[in-house]
């Protein structure tokens, strides 16, 4: 879950439409329309990447008048299906996966079972992936893979659903010092 306090705001006078922001946006909130970046406020998770990457200083982060709460409705989720999907991925449902928002593996699994089709849907639906992106994204890919969901190709991500438990037995035997079967 994430309570989003800020939103990106584009200064159209400064924006040159180069799409650097669009290429980094994890939630698909910012897109260049007729050469000017436009923000869809209800998708902006305030990751700050558009502000950071813009060479024209055209994007600033402003405080929302009303915070946006992003959370998946766990009441609608089938706990057994969540447990099964997490087990298929070799993961624990209660593990806080997204270190930035505390979103658990189970919440992401619920989002995938509930119809998320891409990492962008997970970001918008749970908040996971809206921060640094260097802890949680691999697990998001893995859950999609185990659920049989084919993620669309997109320049913002490269599908990498690999875990240490996926390494072949041959490799695991060849390199026992890496303990590929370890849980932690």
């Amino acid at each position, binding site marked *: 879950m*994430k*309570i*989003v*306090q*800020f939103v990106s705001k584009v200064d159209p006078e400064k924006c040159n439409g180069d799409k650097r922001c669009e*290429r*980094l946006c994890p939630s698909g909130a910012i897109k260049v329309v007729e050469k000017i970046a436009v923000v869809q406020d209800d998708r902006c*998770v*305030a*990751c*700050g*990447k558009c502000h*950071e*990457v813009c060479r024209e200083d055209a994007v600033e*982060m402003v405080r929302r008048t009303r915070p946006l709460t992003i959370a998946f409705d766990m009441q609608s989720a089938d706990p057994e299906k969540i447990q099964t999907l997490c087990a298929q991925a070799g993961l*624990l449902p*209660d*593990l*806080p*996966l997204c*270190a*930035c*928002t*505390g979103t*658990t593996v189970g919440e992401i699994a619920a989002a995938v079972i509930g119809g998320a089709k891409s990492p962008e849907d997970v970001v918008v639906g749970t908040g996971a992936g*809206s*921060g*640094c*992106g*260097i*802890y*949680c*994204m*691999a*697990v998001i*890919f*893995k859950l999609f893979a185990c659920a049989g969901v084919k993620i669309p190709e997109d320049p*913002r*991500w*490269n*599908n*990498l*659903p*690999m*875990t*240490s438990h*996926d*390494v*072949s037995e041959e*490799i695991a035997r060849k*390199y026992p*010092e*890496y*303990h*590929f079967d*370890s*849980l*932690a």
Partner: protein
Amino acid sequence: MVRPAVQPPEVMPSMYGPTPRTCRPADLPGMVSVGVTELFPEIQQGYRQGEGVEETHQATRDALASVNMEMIRPEDTVNILCSEHGFYILEGLHYREMLKALGDVVRDKTGCENIRYRVASGVGVREADEVVDYFDLKKYLNGKVTTTHPFDKPLPIDTEIGTLYGLARIYDGDWIVHAPHDEPRDLYFHRMMNRCLKAFAMNYARYETRAAFHGTFSNRASNFLQKAIFDSPLVQEKFAFSCILRSTPDGIIGTDADNDMYRLDRRISRELLRDYGKVLRLVAEIEECIAVWDAGRWGYYIHSGGIAFGCLENGKYDAFDLTVPSAYGLHDMVAKYFSGEMKTFDRIMNINPAIKAVVINQAWPGLPISDVPRHVPTVVVGRDQADMLNLDSTNPDFMNHAVIADSLETAMAFAGKAAGTDKVIAFDGSFGNFTVSPSMAEDLAVRAPEVSRRVDEELFPMWLKQRGIDPAEA
């Protein structure tokens, strides 16, 4: 052994951090410094900020004298791979000088003029750009300088375990020269397994690969990723040699270089295990402290006595002991979860209970650190620092758990009452000295001799044996 507090390295201004502070822990009345080589006289002395830059240049030339560069033809392109972390060690001039000497030697020995420096980054999209500007690299290095970041154009790399993703800009030359620094930083992740290769799965890799390292590979297994990428046909075809800035907890001691990456890794790892192992185990002995963050970069990566705060935070685990499944507490939590002792995970990091309070005088947001204020009294100095944390997407609720003080003095007084101790250790970027309170200085001095004995006689031999490193191998 104990002297008035030594001024720590200056902080580089950055868009990622608050305005560098004029009042630092070393400026506070009563704070002292205790020297690393006074605690452990056997650790090699090193250069600090402002000294030894020319010597580093010459040491680099000396180290490269025996490196074979015959594979590089004058018409080839050479990518010298730089880690922006190196520019934050002791004000960065030693690292810059190593890179300069490296480029000069490659030119001299091969006749190749197409030297391209590729500066990679830790997290942020503009980190490396800032470093290039601040250190005037385009002019100083006399070569093309380009930056990259974790979300930059990918390069799929076929490895023994499948496709992983590197950064295209890193590998777009005929040859690559791997030129990092050796300081062990987040050793609870790399465990001194393939330490010198880590950048191949981190700085030189896309965020998806880094996420696999942190998220879907277990603690020890994750260190196979850099090996898998380095051993791949693509990288092996391009790899010319490696040149690494050397350090001890006391400071910069020179450069080492080799065509054989694994031989270099074993050689450097042996020395890091010995030297950093002692300081690490000493810090692990601390039973109570107030930790102060006071430098550029993220809190976990700021140094005191050459050791990053993250090493204190994870200090209860011997990260160098490879029989320990996870050195950052995850194993304990997983074990407790399965035993029923923990019903849910209430934290991601198992914070060392010795840390009784944290004062943030200055540090970068940008990496998730909110477990700190959730579990330990945390005081942020200055509204500007608090505003940055509020805006930070990796710490959306940090300031819901921390308090703000207008000054460092006020913050320290508050932290002292909250923590119930006057033992302070400041992570201010220092190598060679710990900036501490007198009671902490005494604590460290009392414990150091037994730590030194235990590392020399018990731990160091065990660490080497676990890695198959021959103590005598040169």
